[in-house]
């Protein structure tokens, strides 16, 4: 626990100096606040921008930032040196992971506040966000573990995050895409976010989410076994 907190603190100090990661955390929350308050079109569903940007936030911020952070630590050899002190790989992953999870939850809170939700709805909104961010973190960790350099992590995470964050939007316009998109966690999250006031989870929603978590955990384990943390 001690080491996890130390890593958490270091990560916080580092992010404040790291514009590329920082912008990931704040861009969508700010965008949501601005759009939601300025653009009002007749007939637009309630909380349209909130749901749209919340889904994109989940697909982008946690995934790209953790992949970049882990890959950079490998590239710069800071991770190797860290693991040669009394830090275990698990502690490092938990430290960085919990940090990004919390940072993204703060962003999610801002997005949530931008919407017009009751307290009860807000709680459900945040629980959905928490789950989505967690799945994204797993994907990002798998990419980070696989990549030798930050460049490599970026080039993998950009297409991956595009797929997951844009699928829900595309499936609004295309039923064919929707049929496939249904199996992604981001589409599931997006659907749930659209019904926070009367959320009715069916078995297949839960199964798809768990299958996603399982799949990305396996992918991460594979990348970790193959490449380790150096």
């Amino acid at each position, binding site marked *: 626990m001690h080491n996890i907190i130390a890593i958490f603190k*270091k990560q916080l100090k580092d992010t404040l100096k790291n514009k590329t990661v920082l912008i990931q955390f704040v861009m969508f929350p700010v965008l949501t606040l601005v759009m939601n308050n300025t653009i009002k079109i007749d007939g637009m569903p309630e909380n349209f921008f909130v749901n749209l940007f919340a889904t994109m936030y989940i697909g982008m911020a946690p995934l790209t930032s953790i992949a970049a952070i882990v890959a950079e630590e490998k590239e710069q*050899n*800071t991770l*190797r040196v860290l*693991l*040669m002190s*009394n*830090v275990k790989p698990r502690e490092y992953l938990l430290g960085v992971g919990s940090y990004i999870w919390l940072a993204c939850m703060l962003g999610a809170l801002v997005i949530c506040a931008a919407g017009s939700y009751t307290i009860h709805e807000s709680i459900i909104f945040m629980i959905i966000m928490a789950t989505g961010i967690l799945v994204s973190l797993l994907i990002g960790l798998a990419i980070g573990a696989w990549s030798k350099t930050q460049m490599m992590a970026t080039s993998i995470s950009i297409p991956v995050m595009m797929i997951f964050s844009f699928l829900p939007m595309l499936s609004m316009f295309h039923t064919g895409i929707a049929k496939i998109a249904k199996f992604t966690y981001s589409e599931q999250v997006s659907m749930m976010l659209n019904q926070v006031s009367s959320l009715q989870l069916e078995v297949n929603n839960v199964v798809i989410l768990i299958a996603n978590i399982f799949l990305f955990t396996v992918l991460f384990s594979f990348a970790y076994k193959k490449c380790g943390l150096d």
Partner: protein
Amino acid sequence: MKNAVTARDISHSFGTNRVLNHITFVIPSGEIFGLLGPSGAGKTTLIKLLTGQLKQDSGYAELLGKDTKELSASDHGQIGIMMDSLGLYDRLSVYNNLAFYADIYRVSHNKIADILKGIGLYEARNTAVSKLSKGMKNRLSLARALMNDAGILFLDEPTSGLDPVTTREIHSILREQREKGKTIFLTTHNMFEAESLCDHIALLSEGSIVEYGTPADICRKYNHLNMLRVTLKGGEIISLENSSASALQMKEYLERNAVETIHSTEPTLETVFIELTGKGLD
């Protein structure tokens, strides 16, 4: 006294590339041990094996009384390491780099200022690492290795690429650490460093230890390399073996009053190395 490090018949390959060949040596506690060898000799690989970052193909190595293949995270807390890639956090300040490791090692932050003063980085404590010179980064990396007050330090080329002044500063820090009873394993290309700093050295060439001993002993052993360099008044330079065989010729020069200067060129680690391997250290 007990040995801090024991290496017995260690061999290691990367694929088909045999990098270390039957390496055997010990480092008594409280010594500075220098591993001297040119680029590619296998120095960094040996450090990685001894600190458990890599597992050797064959042979046995012991650190802190434990098989290096079985070192745990808490064992790693008992050693200080400075790697060739320094592994510093570029965006964080000098102070925050050490503060992080102080947290990891559960050391009071009060200690950071003392360490920074000792290593001459106190004035730069708020500077981001990315803005430091190579020498300052090396010193910071050394400072971090000292953070947990470990009994044994592994330093991979701690002075490579540094100016003579900074090099001397680092040497005096290392001697200070030895005074405190620390064991130091360092690698270097620099024979002066090895000669002036190390209690024992091993010469590593293409993965094999070709000579081992104190710097003075090694040089004495190769004293047949000791030559007399005579510069005559005409400017001519003559090399003579430093032995009775040269006495007659010397006598003649001296009688003719033809000698401008005489130097004896005792073997240095560099000349010994060249004698042994046919190659230089750079």
